[in-house]
């Protein structure tokens, strides 16, 4: 675990840059993480996914998978890949300030 300054705040992150404590997150922190990961501007569709991820994590204790995102976030899987290239669940979790989604067992 290291401490980084993101959007002017001291934030604890793991080796892959995921927030350790979701409570340290702000929307500005999310926007800066997005920029560092190749998403210059977060649109409403991005936020729809990020907000869904955070809400699920905070209520259920686990980040949803891509499949759950596709079924329940209101954004289809194809579009998820356009919004968050490569790994939508991972990237949206990182932007949303929650731990890396655990690969299923």
């Amino acid at each position: 675990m290291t401490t980084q300054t993101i959007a002017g705040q001291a934030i604890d992150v793991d080796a892959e840059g995921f927030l350790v404590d979701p409570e340290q997150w702000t929307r500005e922190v999310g926007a800066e993480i997005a920029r560092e990961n190749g998403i210059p501007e977060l649109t409403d569709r991005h936020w729809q996914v990020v907000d869904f991820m955070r809400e699920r994590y905070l209520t259920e204790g686990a980040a949803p998978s891509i499949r759950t995102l596709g079924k329940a976030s209101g954004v289809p899987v194809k579009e998820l890949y356009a919004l968050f290239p490569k790994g939508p669940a991972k990237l949206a979790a990182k932007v949303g300030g929650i731990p890396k989604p655990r690969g299923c067992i």
Partner: protein
Amino acid sequence: MPVPSNIVILGGGTGGTLTANRLHKQLGDGAHITVVDQDDCHVYQPALIFLPFGLAEPETMVRSRAGQLHDGIHFVIAQVDHVETAENAVHLTDGAVLDYDVLIVASGVRLQPEETEGMTGPGWNERVFTFYDVEGATALRAALKAFTGGRVVVNVVDMPIKCPVAPLEFCFLADWYFADRGIRDQVELTFVTPLDGAFTKPVASETLGGLLAEKHVELITEFAAGEIDGAAGVLRSWDEREVPFDLLVTVPLHGGAAFVERSPGLGDDLGFVPSDHRTLQSRAAPNVFVIGDAAALPTSKAGSVTHFEGSTLVTNVERFLAGEPLEASFDGHANCFIETGFSKALLIDFNYDTEPLPGRYPDGHVGPLPLLKESRLNHMGKLMFEWVYWHVLLPGREIPGISDQMQMAGKHQPAEREESAP
């Protein structure tokens, strides 16, 4: 005499059967037990991996569900429409209603090939197959027999899946099968997974990844399959990567039983039933419990897990009926043989907190079976397990030497392993 409790069990597979038999033994006349399933075909699923290679026969894998239930347990063949947990009622599609004091959801998973674009389109069961059911595995067997060379691709669409090691076993057995037929050098074998390695858990992933390399199976990771073009023979990911194939062996998406999705508040987005991880009591209602693949637990969907859950579940149903606090005893224990071909197999043993480690099983000193290491003994273990399944596990007897909770005895921690490495 007190009025007997009504226990309804949805599903007559591994979990439903062993639970019904154990509860019947424990509660005797104290409970009316009803098991509901949509057919009377109990499949011995561990043999599905052998079927495509002619190492198991479809006829011997399937037995009557009713035949595995002890006398006195009621078996009903019916489709469940939905469950009203608020009314303690199971609604069947024929309009009948089953009332319950305790409900146990043991309805396993439903394969959803239609959820992946193109999977059931052109080429389905001709060059695109799954071995996850008897029909698919039988069709694949004919196709493998006729196969003379080309690209064989084994793909997992997405997790969770039953028996997460099975697709790897398929690669290992395919390597053996084609070598045996003398055409291994004509066959390109590729394993395509959505995970970032051969398996989810680091130590096992390393061992299994090494085995793939040793057997010349190419590994493609972080591939989220979005579309299958059976006519062109192309597997395409959501981010537009392509893997060409002559024969595709796919593991379709898994979801819970359809009635779970139709039951208010019972399941999650994928139709699995959330429960307390250690007591197996559902989040939907205190008198609803879940066992086996139907559960939304962070452990493997596998028969061994179901077996280990059995004791916790039976104890907790008894405690619930007696008004006592539940026992938080399930630890996520899983124990799987991994066939590696050439009459050898690996064995892995793990739980919620401990990943599969090398060592010996069941116990450090007397345990005969090596963990995370190929051996003929493990292969014999897997073959012998079929007898154990029908005659010990389903009837609800104890398996000598195998405890329900995972044991650390006999396992080597990664640090120890490094020290002993050459």
